């Protein structure tokens, strides 16, 4: 039900460690936002587009992934044309498109487990302070992935029950029961987790 946006491959970005990619993404955001040079933004756009197209996504899928964000960018660019000089609008639009393409390339070339390993490392200072446990974050993430299909099945069941009774299917009448039924499971699940000693406390 939830397939990762990661794409198998062996491009340059696939081989780089996650940390390098994330630092590069943050660094390029900062540099591009500090600069108003049209040339720099255009180069960044060309580089990001090349990187993104080289990760091995079919063109149609590649466009689909960034299309909805590009639509908002173009819409805002159209608004900006009435308010700002054309060269500014071009620089602003290229900068955003470059960053979006770069972000899409990082997402497509990084596995969820690689992200999780990096997050665990990032959380370790907080863990030392006793604020949270990195293992809890992985557990929470696992629980979400485990329960999405169940909750969706429950949504379908409630919808069918509405239909069977001839009631209109409205968000209002579905969301309440869906949430109550789901959250009522929390105690059972929590007891099961504690019984297995997953959190060692």
């Amino acid at each position, binding site marked *: 039900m939830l397939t990762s946006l990661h794409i198998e491959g062996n491009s340059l970005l696939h081989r780089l460690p996650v940390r390098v990619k994330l630092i590069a993404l943050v660094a390029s955001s900062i540099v591009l936002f500090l600069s108003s040079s049209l040339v720099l933004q255009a180069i960044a756009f060309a580089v990001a587009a090349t990187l993104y197209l080289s990760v091995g996504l079919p063109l149609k899928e590649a466009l689909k992934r960034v299309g909805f964000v590009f639509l908002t960018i173009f819409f805002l*660019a159209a*608004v900006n044309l009435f308010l700002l000089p054309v060269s500014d609008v071009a620089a602003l639009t290229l900068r*955003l498109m470059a960053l*979006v393409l770069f972000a899409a390339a990082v997402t497509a070339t*990084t596995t969820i487990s690689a992200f999780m390993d990096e997050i665990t490392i990032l959380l370790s200072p907080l863990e030392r302070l006793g604020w949270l446990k990195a293992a809890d974050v992985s557990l929470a993430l696992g629980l979400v992935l485990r329960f999405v299909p169940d909750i969706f099945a429950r949504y379908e069941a409630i919808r069918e029950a509405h239909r069977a009774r001839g009631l209109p299917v409205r968000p209002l009448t579905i969301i309440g029961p869906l949430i109550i039924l789901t959250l009522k499971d929390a105690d059972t699940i929590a007891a099961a987790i504690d019984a297995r000693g997953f959190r060692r406390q």
Partner: protein
Amino acid sequence: MNTRDLVLISLFAAIVVVLGLIPPITLGFIPVPITAQSMGVMLAGCILGAKRGALAFLLFLLLVAIGLPVLSGGRGGLVVLQGPSGGFILGWVVAAFVTGLIAERTVREGQAETRQFVGFFLASVLGGIVVLYAIGVPWISFVTGTPLLAAAGGSLVFIPGDLLKAAIATLAARAVYAGYPLLPARA
């Protein structure tokens, strides 16, 4: 944090994912489709309270960031955070927290039903609309260069839909509160 809180947070994040899988509902009188997902912010605050509501959305944000297509329409990944609407997505965490904070302070058991409705609606509007736009709109203005007033003016289109969402969230939150109260009672 006890295990029950951890599970509640995870289950709520999973509910938000499911709300994104529900096809959006288009209403005749406003141009924007109602996605059940953006109601999740108001619901999280009103049902789980400030801390757990915000953590549920932080977890949801983590799912987005690591490349799971959990946003409505199968969107996800760092793309969404890097795009113009990134502020709204990040703002969800703060919005859920403020919604919860207000709900915790205005709604308690034994009140008249109307007062509970008013409390949840106030929390949903202030947290889920005012706070969210206070983060999202300047963000748009910053990343796209659109002057703040133009960005704010353009966002007005979404307000009627958001008020409707706040109304639906209020009714749903109150139904959950009556059936299975979780909102932390303030001592």
